[in-house]
């Protein structure tokens, strides 16, 4: 299996807080990797490091290397904007642009960058919405307000917006935690489908979800990577006692 993203001794500090400690691991192409662990263990922080979201936080300091196709994204010459075009992100709370229509939300990545091509746009919007199984639900109200969609529809819209710009890696930070079971199921099916084209890294608090959707799982505790490996192995015969305790719900 081809590795797509590689963390090498990644450390993230926020002022005096050492949030991620010496993490090294691989994320593979066309596979889903789940990041699990108790609240505050640094899952979101690791995820956000992979598309340089910490650049905006003055107190944040990232050291170590993150290789995307063997190139360090924290290299001095690396450009955060082009990295974010290759590494998209879906957030915990659906966050469509409230002032934009459904159509404009899907095409936002092009529109905000000032390079929309009318006929191409229609094509991108339709195919992106179809991929997230939202097309049939919204095709008659593409010019309608995105805030009138349900939470689950909004989240699928955000995923459509992310895949519309054709990233290579998609980061998802608890994408279904604000959703009802049916919407969650739809998102999970979607992830299953998306991995044919993308490398997916998903943070989740839901063990069943991790077991269902991921091929690989990484367990974090207090900012450290305790164990990473194939999901089946992590969930049946983990190497570390800590991992087993967490997965079986014996601590948390």
């Amino acid at each position, binding site marked *: 299996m081809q590795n797509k993203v590689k963390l090498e001794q990644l450390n993230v500090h926020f002022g005096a807080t050492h949030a991620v400690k010496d993490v090294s691991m691989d994320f593979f192409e066309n596979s889903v990797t789940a990041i699990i662990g108790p609240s505050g263990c640094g899952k979101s922080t690791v995820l956000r490091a992979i*598309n340089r*979201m910490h650049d*905006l936080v*003055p107190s944040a300091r990232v050291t170590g290397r993150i290789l995307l196709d063997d190139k360090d994204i924290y290299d001095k010459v690396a450009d955060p*904007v*082009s990295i*974010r*075009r*290759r590494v*998209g*992100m879906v*957030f915990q*709370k659906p*966050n*469509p*642009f*409230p*002032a934009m229509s459904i159509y404009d939300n899907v095409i*936002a*990545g092009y529109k*905000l*960058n*000032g390079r929309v091509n009318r006929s191409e746009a229609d094509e991108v919007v339709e195919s992106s919405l179809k991929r997230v199984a939202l097309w049939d639900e919204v095709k008659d109200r593409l010019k309608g307000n995105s805030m009138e969609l349900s939470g689950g529809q909004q989240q699928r819209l*955000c995923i459509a*917006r*992310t895949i519309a*710009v054709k990233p290579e890696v998609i980061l998802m930070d608890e994408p279904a935690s604000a959703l009802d079971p049916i919407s969650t199921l739809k998102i999970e099916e979607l992830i299953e489908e998306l991995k044919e084209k993308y490398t997916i890294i998903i943070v989740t608090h839901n063990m069943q979800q991790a077991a269902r959707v991921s091929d690989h799982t990484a367990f974090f505790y207090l900012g450290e990577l305790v164990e990473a490996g194939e999901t089946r192995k992590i969930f049946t015969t983990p190497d570390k006692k800590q991992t087993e305790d967490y997965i079986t719900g014996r601590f948390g």
Partner: protein
Amino acid sequence: MKSVILRKGANMAMTGLMLAAALAVLVPLVLIFVHIIKMGLSSISLDFFTQIPKPTGETGGGMANGMAGSAVMIALASIIGLPIGIFGAIYLSEYGGSRISTVIRFAADVLAGIPSIITGMVAYTLLVVPMKGFSALAGAVALAMIMIPIILRTTEEQLKMVPGSLREASLALGVPLWRTSLKVTLRSAMTGVMTGVLLAIARVAGETAPLLFTALGNQFWSSKLTAPMAAMPLQIFNFAISPYEDWHRLAWAGALVLVTIMFALSLSARYFGRSRQKN
């Protein structure tokens, strides 16, 4: 028993006192309105809006050139002040966080508190003296100096209220920070920003002192930005201190129009603020 009655009495007395104090706030405003309407309304006519002041001794005339001059200078001041205030606010809110932001914020607060006559004197030294003459341009610059800190601070506050999740959504799509700031953050805050702009315009619309040393005023029509230009507050001032009864009446009419305009600006600023809160 007695103490309870006493306590209730004291409570009522204090409540009444505070209500009276609160109502006293309204008194100056009501006085101003009533007085201005009483003195000014009778002198308002079509002539007032279409004629320029008549030479001394003749009756009639209006403030058309003053109104146009004020509009021109406020527009010019906005052209100067809006970009500086808004872009500066974007820097403070979206890029800042360093020592220089704190300094700029403090400087803006000090600038906002500086008496406007001093702003006028500075504009006089910096523009009127080197350009060898009073000018509308110098007046506009003086007004812009008053507008900038107001726009800067209100815009910054509005930008800070935009949820971080929207910025992140845009950045994660590979949109550069400057485009995100303009097209997502500023756009989401637009109604609030407009409120601040309207308040800033309302504030400078009535400023007289900074124009005394800069635009100077003009009896006639003038469209040259490098020449003295009439302005409503200046005309009101000049007419009010003149010895002629007829000019006094014009001054009151001018005061009424000016206060009405400012009232309308404040109302629309409130309206903008409201409609923002609703969604």
